[in-house]
């Protein structure tokens, strides 16, 4: 188990990264707040946690991914849709455009792409984080990349980037 001080330092260093991952995946700030808090609480309650910081970080990302998966499943059953955040703070129009493009993907696709590209996770780690089998990760990630590519093409961003 983590000491209070170790937890405080770990939380300080990684909470925002976990929040950004969850927020970009769910597109809902309130959900991200809840999920991140829950994930770190579960870390505190766990009897056995990885000893190294990288392992701990992956552990929290995994819990957060599992919590998101639970919510998506629940919402699918309840036939509710994502409610995009209406809060607008400091983001520039360009940042907002990037975020809106990404938000057009399905939540699970966003999570897959974030873990693969931003966190650099392996298929196995992604599978554990989102409760998916290794083969499913490969197929779904490939599909998500294809969807993102099509979105970028539709917005003329692919040609723009290739110049």
């Amino acid at each position, binding site marked *: 188990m983590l000491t209070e001080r170790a*937890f*405080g330092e770990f939380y300080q260093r990684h909470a925002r990264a976990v929040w950004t991952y969850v927020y970009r995946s769910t597109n809902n700030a309130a959900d991200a707040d809840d999920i991140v808090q829950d994930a770190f609480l579960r870390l505190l309650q766990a009897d056995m946690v990885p000893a190294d910081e990288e392992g701990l970080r992956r552990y929290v990302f995994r819990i957060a991914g599992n919590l998101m998966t639970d919510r998506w499943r629940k919402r699918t059953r309840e036939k509710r849709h994502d409610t995009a955040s209406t*809060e607008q703070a400091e983001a520039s129009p360009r*940042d907002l455009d990037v975020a809106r*493009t990404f938000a057009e993907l399905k939540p699970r696709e966003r999570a897959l792409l*974030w873990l693969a590209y931003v966190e650099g996770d392996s298929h196995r780690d992604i599978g554990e984080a989102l409760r998916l089998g290794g083969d499913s990760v490969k197929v779904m990630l490939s*599909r998500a990349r294809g969807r993102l590519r099509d979105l970028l093409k539709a917005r003329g961003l692919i040609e723009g980037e*290739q110049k």
Partner: protein
Amino acid sequence: MTQYDGEITAAEERVLSGFMRRLQSAALDCSPRMAGADVLLLKAQLVRKWDAQRRVHRPIELMEPVEIAAGFAAAVLLLSWSVPSLFDWVPRLTF
């Protein structure tokens, strides 16, 4: 045409990586409202305390229906034992 598997070219892959990097560095359109580490530590302590209390109270809660059932059975037994003598006793009452 959209054929996802294996259809992404190296150039497109570079674009996707670039887009994801941009997304990672993009300013957020809202701010996190997360609790501080001290609040989480306190919550975790409370949850642990509640769990411990629940563990202690569990046998009592489990036995509650048994106690009710035993009480009910005793009442039925007592009633079935006392009703015949009650019937004997009622006609002797004079008003």
